[in-house]
């Protein structure tokens, strides 16, 4: 009896990690997430970052974001910094690609200089926050391999729990475990495991709102670093879809006059 239950338990726990079915199902979930978020065209939004360290000291950043959906490739995006005030006017232009490294330019307003920068710094901190560049850049299906793990209750809904492993060896993570809302195919929570496979951070999505009857955007994203005790709260506001942005609004000239 004992032996049988042990056998059942071991089968239950080991099978999802080895079966090709779990990989297929994981990928299917990722493809469905991507499909449901396809067709947004372009968006603009305001973002407030609230950084808090272990001692409770806070600092704030204000950033405005513009995103353009690119058919057949990763999105183009521009981030414009309003605060802290010493970096006001600094702007960041990024062309993400499904394959190969992204193209990135930084505009420094004091010198009026546009600098092409290396996009290899994926695991680096974005603006001193707990978000790495790879956490905030366009999430393309091709950037991970997937495994479906299980179903689990998440709040009032049920979630798929999937593991996604970054394809890029420069990623700061060995794996991420994501809770995906089964009904809406949107992430509710992601655990990030560092290069030593230790739990590093947890990202929680809160207060989802649906736009244009299709696109879900969280009003708050809360990242907690379990190793340092630091947290970053992203608050989104003023989301707009279909504002008429085009590729012309995502080039070096528009970067120079970004406001």
């Amino acid at each position: 009896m004992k032996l049988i239950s042990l056998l059942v338990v071991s089968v239950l726990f080991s099978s999802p990690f080895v079966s090709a079915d779990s990989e297929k199902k994981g990928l299917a979930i990722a493809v469905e997430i991507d499909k449901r978020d396809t067709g947004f065209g372009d968006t603009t939004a305001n973002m407030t970052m609230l950084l808090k360290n272990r001692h409770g000291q806070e600092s704030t950043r204000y950033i405005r974001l513009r995103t353009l959906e690119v058919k057949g490739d990763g999105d183009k995006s521009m981030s414009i910094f309003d605060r802290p005030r010493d970096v006001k006017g600094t702007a960041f232009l990024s062309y993400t690609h499904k394959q190969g490294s992204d193209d990135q330019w930084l505009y420094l307003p004091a010198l009026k200089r546009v600098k092409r920068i290396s996009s290899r710094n994926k695991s680096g901190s974005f603006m001193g926050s707990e978000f790495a560049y790879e956490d905030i850049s366009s999430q393309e299906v091709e950037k991970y391999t997937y495994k479906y793990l299980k179903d689990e209750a998440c709040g009032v809904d049920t979630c798929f729990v999937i593991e996604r492993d970054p394809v890029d060896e420069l990623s700061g993570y060995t794996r991420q475990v994501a809770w995906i809302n089964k009904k809406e195919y949107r992430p509710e929570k992601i655990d990030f495991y560092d290069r030593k496979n230790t739990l590093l951070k947890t990202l929680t999505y809160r207060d989802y709102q649906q736009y244009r009857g299709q696109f879900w955007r969280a009003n708050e994203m809360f990242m907690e670093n379990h190793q340092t005790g630091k947290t970053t709260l992203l608050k989104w506001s003023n989301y707009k879809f279909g504002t008429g942005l085009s590729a012309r609004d995502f080039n070096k000239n528009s970067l120079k006059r970004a406001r």
Partner: protein
Amino acid sequence: MWLRVLFILVFINHSTLGSASDGEWSGYIAAEWRTFFESPTDVAQHGDTTSLSAQAEYYREWEGGKKSFRFTPFVRIDGRDSQRSHFDIRELNWTSVHDDWELTAGIGKVFWGVTESQHLVDIINQTDLVESTDGEEKLGQLMLKLSFTRDWGDVDLFLLPGFRERTFPSRIGRLRSIAAVDVGHAEYASSQGQDHIDAAVRWSTSFGDWDVGVSHFSGTSREPRFRPELNGGRTILIPIYETIDQSSLDLQATKDDWLWKLELISRSGQGDRYTAATAGFEYSLYGIFESSVDLGIIAEYLYDDRKEAASTPFEDDLFLGARLAINDEASSELLAGMIVDLDNNSRVMSVEASRRIGDNWKINLEARFFSNIDNKDSLVSFENDDFMQLELAWYF
């Protein structure tokens, strides 16, 4: 001239009202303390000094940013050097953006180039030398700028009326040539003098990992040559601004952790045609020692085919630098570098560091050391001007 432009711009602003954003002001006020480690070369030159500077920017836009107006005045009040005390309109311009072209009229600032140690290609704006010897601070330039965006790249056309003279420290100022520059009596090769209208054109584009710019400037040289003159028993330098033609190329290849850079110019009009170049790389190491700290290693070779006759001290020099970005909440940064003359071993070392304090304050540290300067090197005039400066700035 400037007043007339201001009136035109204000008029345009009021006549194009529509879906206007609220105008907004931002900027900073800074206090600077500079200390020199040695007695000056000339007893007339001052010692430690303090100064105050401020820059404000007013920005307003219409039609969702298709039309915009920008006004950026700057002022410095220096405790010792009356010529370092100055006021300048960095920007006062109006921009109109269309589908594939845009127009900027007024006083503006433009940067061209890719390298770190010197900026050969950057030529539109005059250097505000009293602000910093690194040549990165610029005076506002009156311009009409027309930009086209095409699939094959961006084209910028410039008309540049109203030449600005380079600023220089006064006779009592530090970091000056051994004979002081007589700013009030500049001479021009062109009979039109300061009224000569300069022109420039630039094509730039990115393809894949490559960013490239090709430019041509025709007009009054931003960099003067000097004629020594005896004035009341003292030698002074009269700046001579010649009419030049400068063609240039700037190139950057972004290959993973390596940025490969080249700036190349060919200039005629100041004696024989000459060629100068800066070429090198920046290599980045991310998250060193399992921390959040990034380290950039920079190496550039500085060349001028006029050799010893070059108007800059960098004719056969090597720049080595390191850039540290701590990536903390305070955005702490450090850039340390050294330029060595490969012929005579003269060395300039510099350190720049900064960090934010709270949300609105920033502290900047800058130091420069001139060592082993050869008597024939043009840096010899700075030989005793090793300095360190601390600046505390409040942003609004």
